């Protein structure tokens, strides 16, 4: 008995630790994305997100003051200044050639070519000397390795939302997603009630057709549907994509909701019938409130699917500012701004923010709705 208990508790620990590891594995990329999107773009290029909370060592190229500011003292020409200009900072190494940017320790005086010397202090003050006059108008290049505090900023978000057009695309995606979630639920709930509780000839065949439609790949209907839209004058419009998403979502919606509604206790519906309610009243006053978990779970499915959809949006919407959805915008950015991580990470996070909110606010219904077919009482 004790051995069994011990084994079980060890097993429990294994399960708990595995779950913890899985959760970490799944959430770390998201966390990385969030942190990266909040970082200064220069720091983002220099290091990954994981050391981003500690002070960063970076190699910078600074320039000395131009030749016009040189002084002449005891037969030498001098250039003085601070590599940090007005700010404070710490130099940990420096150099004067790009091959060896961190060759010397702060405080050393280094011999350069043609008798020039360079000295950089840890606080950033530098002193350049030369036996002949400096001529460069841009100043000499100084390579310094500095310690820099982490910088977090919302600039990336304001840039993607307002300068890169992601804000407009966000609204476009909303315009597609909300009706494309609500319309199929409305239709499917009525259909599900009829298929579950109303007696009419051909009901079983109807249901079989709906189940059959679940396995039809939507890709095969894209082009015929677009042709149809063009012929009847809908063209590439929001109405078209709402109808398309509705059609593609309906089989699953009807199937899920019918199973849930068919599982509601028969006596409740009969009781309402004895109480004088007609089918519409039973549906609105009894079935809809009781099916809320199933409705919510399907709403999450449909919302996430439409939100993340690129294929249908590419086919049924144009590529202009008024119709480009967020997934489409992200794809374009990958092409045009592929190197700008601060833009891409911020955009990516904007695009997953809404699904995350939807998921976490409705997740209890998601689990309950998924189990509704198998567990009595839902």
């Amino acid at each position, binding site marked *: 008995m004790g051995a069994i208990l011990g084994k079980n508790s060890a097993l429990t620990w294994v399960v708990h630790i595995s779950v913890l590891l899985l959760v970490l594995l799944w959430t770390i990329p998201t966390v990385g994305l969030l942190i990266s999107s909040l970082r200064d773009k220069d720091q983002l290029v220099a290091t990954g997100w994981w050391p981003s909370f500690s002070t960063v060592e970076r190699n910078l190229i600074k320039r000395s003051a131009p030749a016009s500011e040189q002084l002449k003292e005891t037969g030498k020409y001098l250039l003085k200044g601070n590599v940090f200009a007005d700010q404070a900072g710490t130099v940990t190494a420096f150099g004067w050639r790009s091959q060896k940017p961190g060759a010397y320790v702060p405080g050393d005086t280094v011999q350069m070519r043609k008798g020039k010397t360079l000295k950089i202090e840890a606080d950033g003050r530098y002193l350049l000397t030369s036996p002949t006059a400096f001529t460069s108008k841009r100043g000499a290049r100084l390579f310094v390795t500095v310690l820099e505090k982490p910088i977090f900023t919302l600039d990336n978000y304001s840039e993607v939302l307002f300068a890169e057009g992601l804000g407009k695309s966000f609204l476009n995606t909303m315009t597609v997603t909300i009706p494309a979630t609500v319309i199929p639920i409305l239709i499917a709930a009525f259909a599900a009630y009829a298929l579950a509780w109303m007696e009419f000839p051909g009901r079983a065949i109807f249901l079989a057709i709906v189940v059959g439609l679940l396995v039809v790949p939507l890709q095969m209907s894209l082009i015929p549907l677009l042709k149809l839209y063009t012929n009847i004058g809908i063209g590439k419009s929001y109405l078209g994509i709402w109808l398309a998403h509705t059609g593609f979502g309906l089989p699953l919606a009807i199937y899920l909701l019918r199973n849930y509604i068919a599982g509601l*206790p028969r*006596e*409740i519906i*009969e*009781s*309402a*019938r*004895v*109480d*004088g*309610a007609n089918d519409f*009243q039973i549906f609105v*006053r*009894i079935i809809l*409130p*009781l099916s809320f978990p199933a409705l919510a779970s399907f709403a999450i499915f449909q919302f996430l699917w439409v939100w993340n959809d690129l294929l249908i949006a590419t086919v049924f919407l144009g590529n202009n500012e008024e119709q480009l959805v967020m997934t489409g915008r992200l794809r374009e950015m990958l092409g045009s701004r592929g190197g700008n991580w601060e833009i891409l990470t911020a955009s990516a996070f904007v695009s997953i923010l809404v699904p995350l909110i939807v998921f976490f606010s409705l997740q209890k219904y998601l689990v309950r709705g998924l189990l509704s077919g198998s567990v009595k009482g839902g």
Partner: protein
Amino acid sequence: MANLKLTDVSKVYGNVPVLTDINLEIEQGELIVFVGPSGCGKSTLLRMIAGLESINSGQLEIDGKLMNQVPPAKRGIAMVFQSYALYPHLSVRDNMSFALKIAKVPAAEINRVVEEAAASLQLTEYLDRLPKALSGGQRQRVAIGRAIVRDPKIFLFDEPLSNLDAALRVATRIEIAQLKEKMPQSTMIYVTHDQVEAMTLATRIVVLNNRGIEQVGTPLELYQKPANKFVATFIGSPAMNLLPATVTETGQQTRLSLAEGALATVPIATTKAEQNLIFSLGARPEDMQITETDDYIFKGKINYIEALGEVTLVYFNNPNDSVPIIAKVAGIASFVRGQILKFTVAPDKLQLFNQQGVSCKYRES
């Protein structure tokens, strides 16, 4: 005038007949109990009266009007379901006013009726709770309240107590009986498989078995004058003992010869044609009296004893059947297993059933 009349009503599921040619008249103010073993069609019959099941043939009339095709809400009935069937998302008040709201009764009137019904069922303080916050008995009262507010001509109860525990069942049974007393004009039809409920509540009992009605009568009629073997064994607990008996002499009095050489003379008329046939002699356990004389009708070896305090149930092996012979002896008896006992029964309390299971005593009725 009959409040409810069933004429040759039948029900078929696919090819399976469930009820065949049911004829029944129910007067206003009666409390009729449909009783029978599971699967006998008693709930189906109730649901046909409610309009939840279609009627394949025959006629259902309520107050003289044909109701076969009338929707449930227009039949003037209210139904209390076994599982209560409360609307789980609505408060007790909304549950009880649902039907009235559908019927577009003015709000003030709804409020008055609901408050009144709630007060009579001691539900006033629970009116704003959801059903899930109520106990089983309270839920059952809400279900009854929901029926009362509609002021129906006929109340239909579908095994309303079977989901309650034993103590609550007795209490709720009494409540239903009191409810009936308060509303003497309303007709109630009550389905149960529990014969105690049937005996205590009913003004008349309808015993159903095997697709049809076996007997209709007051509880005591069914107990004292069972029309056939089924009713005899179904009503009364423990069930009536049936002893195989050969008819040796017919006439106004019938002489019978039983197992173990026992002989009996019963004041039940038989015909010449029934001479030498093997009939069943029925004796209720509570009528079995221990005797020392040779004038016994049953002799057996005790197989099992159940001492209940007020009575002792003594079980004997039945050589002809798997159902044991049971005798109910008053008080605490000091029998031992294996002891041999002889029993006699007052002749006027004996029942005799022919080979078809029909009572010879009440043939004409």
